[in-house]
């Protein structure tokens, strides 16, 4: 790195402070809203810090009496956790073998491009037949049904990520194993999977976050506590005429916590995943 003069250093720190402010201010405000009384939130001029912190919304949303706000949000969180997990596992089950095949056998590569090309399809181009299909199978408003639909988004993405992750793993190991007479499944299980564990973890994390974030399909294909996800529950809460901005903010904080904590804790993994795709694309 080149030497820096004082002016440049000051400039750097000012920019860095501005960036930190830009990122953190909306988060801070979301949190402050969640602990401000309604009165503070509708005062003019606006109060930037509540007169008295008010944690009652957190109590409301963690009170699980049947049919209450808290129970609704909790069941939605539970659904999101399960649906994202099912979809992630299913996506990995099809994309690990496929990603490895494409990585090792370039001859089938064109089919991967076809799969990735489906990323260009907007969900609205699949929604009507998917809706009719799920209805026909009796799978509307089921967790499994929604998880299967999520494969449309997750599977191409994880395959692409895994293929880029498998590429740098040396082939010599496989050749040696093949000479030793290892069967295909043994080779995958004993040699490839342990080496590829980090990239598979990254793919799983991404898939999970994508599924957690999904809104459109969940809005269309779920209707109640049996399958409604947290994104739809939050939208219902905010779209309804809930008078209390603080409650909306609190629900937002709760729904954001899992992915944000995931993101912070596993940021190395995430960044490596983000950039594998981008840099080697």
């Amino acid at each position: 790195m080149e030497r820096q003069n004082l002016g440049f250093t000051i400039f750097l720190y000012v920019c860095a402070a501005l960036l930190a402010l830009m990122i953190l201010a909306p988060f801070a405000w979301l949190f402050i809203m969640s602990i401000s009384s309604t009165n503070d939130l509708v005062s003019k001029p606006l109060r930037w810090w509540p007169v008295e912190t008010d944690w009652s919304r957190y109590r409301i949303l963690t009170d699980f009496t049947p049919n209450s706000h808290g129970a609704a949000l909790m069941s939605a969180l539970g659904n999101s956790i399960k649906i994202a997990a099912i979809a992630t596992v299913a996506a990995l089950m099809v994309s690990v073998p496929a990603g490895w095949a494409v990585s090792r056998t370039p001859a089938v590569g064109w089919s991967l491009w076809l799969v990735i090309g489906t990323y260009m399809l907007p969900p609205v181009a699949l929604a009507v037949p998917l809706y009719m299909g799920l209805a026909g199978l009796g799978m509307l408003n089921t967790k499994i049904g929604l998880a299967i639909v999520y494969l449309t988004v997750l599977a191409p993405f994880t395959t692409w990520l895994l293929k880029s992750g498998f590429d740098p793993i040396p082939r010599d190991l496989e050749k040696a194993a093949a000479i030793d007479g290892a069967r295909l499944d043994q080779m995958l299980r004993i040699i490839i999977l342990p080496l590829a564990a980090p990239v598979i973890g990254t793919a799983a994390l991404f898939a999970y976050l994508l599924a957690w974030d999904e809104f459109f399909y969940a809005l269309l294909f779920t209707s109640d506590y049996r399958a409604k996800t947290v994104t739809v529950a939050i939208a219902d809460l905010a779209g309804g005429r809930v008078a209390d901005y603080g409650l909306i903010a609190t629900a937002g904080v709760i729904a954001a916590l899992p992915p944000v904590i995931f993101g912070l804790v596993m940021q190395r993994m995430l960044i490596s995943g983000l950039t594998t795709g981008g840099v080697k694309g």
Partner: protein
Amino acid sequence: MNAGWTATRAWLLMLPLLIVMLSVIGWPFFDTVRLSFTDARLVGTGGDFVGFANYERLFSSRAFRRAFLVTTQFAVVSVLVEVVLGVLVALLLYQNFRGRNVLRALLILPWALPTVVNALLWRLIYNPEYGALNALLVQIGLLDAYRSWLGDPNSALVALIVADAWKNFPLVALISLAALHAVPHDIKAAAIVDGAGALARFRFVILPYLAGPLMVALVLRTIEAFKVFDIIWIMTRGGPANSTRTLSILVYQEAFSFQRAGSGASLALIVTLAITVLAVVYVALIRKSAGAQF
């Protein structure tokens, strides 16, 4: 192990993925194509073949032209903002300063925030009477009086773009940052020795390394922006006076609120076509830039 067996084995390994893709994407897509030539309703009738009637009706409709324009504006401006901001932030975080790693970690936060939460957070911020934005701008003297952000057709789309860009610029920034780190040190050193100014260094030394990854990010973000639904659905539902009604919102209305599955399908296919054309143009550009580079 001969080549034929390797290919067969590869196809066998691909099979589960291909079967899944065919059933959750292939079949629905072709069914959408079929539906687009019918007058099917969402519930009840399967519909009759009507030829290109749905397409003709759409192309002559004011709503479609407007939604197309709104979607394009949203996609172009938001992606542009994200790319410029993302590259600038990457250049900043590439410098050596205290707290750099903390800042890099923070960058992941907006990206990890669920889109729906992001949308409602900004909706609260833009609230015309009690929102933080009005309060802030008035208190620091940038604004004389509280104003409407999401209720004014001149500012609603801009407000949406800001909210979307805030969530998505970190992606571009992280990709660019990784690309910056891939620039070999000796090349940078050589450029400094040659006495190239900062701007020239960026243009001739850094940019070629950034171009490829940046184009990938650009394609991804453009496709996503063209498909946009959730953030708009939550913040404005397409209002005021449909000034933020994008194509995806229009398809939702046609197919699900008004139950015209056939017409909704044809509209969805037009969106798909537009995205495909965009992506092909971009990929051609990527090829070109990659070709110029290597």
